[in-house]
């Protein structure tokens, strides 16, 4: 017997109520924030403010008879680790478009940065680039191979249009 999640009910702008049944305790995984809301709860009702006005946050509820949520099976993260260099002052991680992280050289040894898949994007291949700076501003850039990040996707923010001539409803992007 697994948990059964009922259709979320909109109870206000951006606000939705969820109810479920099953064998407690329950785990609730939020695919918008990509993390657990509860890892051990007997609650059977929850209200969540959504990112979108008309679409509830996708969640997965599992009861005591079930295994891991898909969000754990497909964590959608990549961990990049690099070795610190003598005379380096800082390290810059970017994705080819945006600087994601600055890490100072502290003598720790190895450093890392964890990429989270952009859950609003359907692109799964992530470019990762590391630039090392010394104290005089000299740089060395290392381009890492494109990394394929697998996560549970979310439906994009959509709306509906209707053509009365053809009585056709069409899904569109907001």
């Amino acid at each position: 017997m697994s948990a059964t999640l009922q259709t979320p009910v909109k109870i206000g702008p951006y606000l939705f109520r969820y109810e479920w049944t099953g064998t407690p305790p329950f785990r609730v995984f939020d695919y918008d924030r990509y993390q657990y809301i509860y890892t051990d709860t007997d609650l059977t009702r929850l209200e969540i403010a959504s990112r979108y006005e008309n679409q509830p946050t996708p969640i997965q509820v599992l009861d005591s008879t079930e295994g891991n949520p898909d969000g754990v099976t497909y964590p959608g993260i990549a961990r990049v680790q690099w070795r610190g260099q003598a005379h380096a002052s800082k390290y810059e991680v970017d994705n080819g478009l945006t600087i994601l992280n600055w890490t100072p050289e502290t003598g720790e040894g190895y450093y890392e940065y964890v990429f989270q898949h952009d859950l609003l994007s359907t692109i799964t291949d992530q470019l990762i680039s590391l630039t090392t700076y010394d104290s005089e501003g000299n740089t060395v850039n290392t381009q890492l191979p494109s990394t394929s990040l697998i996560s549970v996707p979310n439906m994009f923010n959509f709306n509906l249009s209707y053509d009365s001539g053809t009585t056709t409803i069409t899904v569109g992007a907001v």
Partner: protein
Amino acid sequence: MAIAYTKGDTLGIYRTATGLTGTYNLGGRKDGREIVPNFFVGPVQIPPIVILSASGNNTTEGYLAAKSASTLSFIGTGGTEGSAVTCNARDTVLVEDTDNDLWIRVYRDTDYSTADLGGFFNLTFLPEIHGVIGGAIVTKSGSVQNHYGAVMLSNHSGLGEACSSIKAWIGTLGTQRLSGTAQLGGAGGGTITTATADGFADWPASGWCRITTNAPALREIVYYSSRTSTSLTVPADGRGRLGTSAAAGAATDSVDCVPGIRIGYEAMDSNGEIQAIASATTAPTGITWDTDITSALGLSIGTLNPRENVGLWIHREIPANVTASILMENKINLSYVVDGVTYTNVLRGNYRIKDTSLALVKLWLGVDADPDFTTAPDATAALFPSIVITPPVSGISEYRIGCKYTNEYGITSHDTGYQSIWVNSSGAQVDAPITSPVDVSLENRQAGVAILQAKYRKTLDSTPADTWRIYYRTNGTDPDPAIDTPIEILLTDSTYSFPSQFDNSMQLRYAFATQAYNTDLRVIVRMYNSDTTDESINETVTQLTINTSTQSISPIPQAFAMMKESYSGQRIGTELSTLDLGNSWRYRIFPDEFLLYTGSTVVMRSTIKEYAEGRIYVPATFSFDNVAHSAAAVSTTYLIEAVSANVAYILVGSTRRAKIDLSTNVIEAAEFDWGAGISEDIPVNAFAWGNSSATYLLQYSPIRGRFVPWLKLTSGGVLSTMFPVTQRRS
């Protein structure tokens, strides 16, 4: 000091390179970069220590610890701690587990940190992904896809020792089974089924199966697209893979789970190089490919003297119409002998297979109902699906559209909501009706009263409702808003309509007028805007059967606040009538009440004095039981037949139809309709009156100036009262 590049670390694995700018893994020369397992060091570190390489036998976890300011020890995957190794400034050392196939090579970088050794690395080892061993990411195609790459095996001995008896073979990925129950035919798709329970449970969800005869000899390698715990499903495109041909199987065949690769080796030329291929889809020439899964039958490469290399080619073959997978694994085993000791190593690499045709937005439609995501979608599209609807025959219908997105690996989103469009019978879109109330409930209260509750979320409507509309019927049929007249309650009516304490909604709490016992009450609650005359369109009926017998006559605190006298024993006042019924039973009638006694105990008291409304009191110890009586009365002198000090019957005609029993504290009748009211007027001045169909007990009403009925008992045993019944406290 344990010397680096010795023992198991004698045979190095390097990438290959061509050209000055470096095109890697397509053959050519040996590149300076080694291929080592991916690893992560964990939060605690040994800052001066750089990890240069590790045995591929470390597949999951390892532990490198500083044992002193200048010594290290290592525990490989599944191993035990080996001897401590001294590692001084700028030393490169080999640190081994007690199992010398588990090792790690490290460098003490005093240019980076001059600190003493201290701390530890909690190591996590992982195969590379999309490197030379695994190969590039695959996109499903209708054609076979080949991928070639080469690594260089190099004797980089630190002691100038030879590395002999080098062997390479394909690693297996699941437990070997006998095909047993079902085998493939000579061609086309089919299944392979093992007789071993859960025999394929540790095999990947899709992959390759190497079929061997009991000779043993290679029969065929096939690709399976899916499996159960005992069966492999092989598509037609999966037959005869990796250089084999389709051949009918036999029950005595052995099946092994293997990666979809084969390997071959190429000796170096005089420059220490091997051939270079133009691209990863170009096959190298002159290579003898091998798919064997044992060291005995695999590649026998021979001996590499110090600084000698040999190229190891890997051919990955992906069949047409392959199944998407987030993780496919390649595995190559190595063994070699150094200084008389046999060592092993493993090359592991992963890749993904994506199927762009799986990347779809899926649409489900529910008409006046939630979309059912457990069924097949009603429409799909790469981005924007559409669906043709059928307008309603009459009125308007709500078309609820739910969407989910599935990515190119077949992983589907967990969206469960929907959006709506309302369409009328002409096929025209209309504005969303006023939001229907939610959490509608009906509950029994005392004495035939039902409480109706509902919630209206006014913030969901751009033009909110201002009125509750309650459609109800009491005849067992559903209300019809088209023809029924509703009870209207303004949202501003503070008697029944309240703002919620928890959100911005409004809460209805309405008490219906008293209904007869067993009334089938059915309600539809709608929201109404008196300016626009818009009304919500919900049709959901809420039903309640009025049942206020035993359970619903629990003490009502307000009732006791109205009591002025003690209800046990005699009261003082003008007595209008009294009669001894025998066996200690009697009744007494006062201007505003009726009392039925046995001894000094008041069994029933009916009062009519408060605000012209009445109430009937019985002892708190009494309970009520639906027991039908039909025995003939022994005495019909009175309509209350007192048979003992504790037992009396109320008669209808000459038949006992209700029983009052003080020995068990029970009043019994076939049915109770407490507080249902008595519509008949009995124009007699007596405590009781009856005929063959009903008996009435009466009391004097100071309001009306004459006797009125307060209790009715029918020949069917239905006992009803004029007023609500309360159990008194003593």
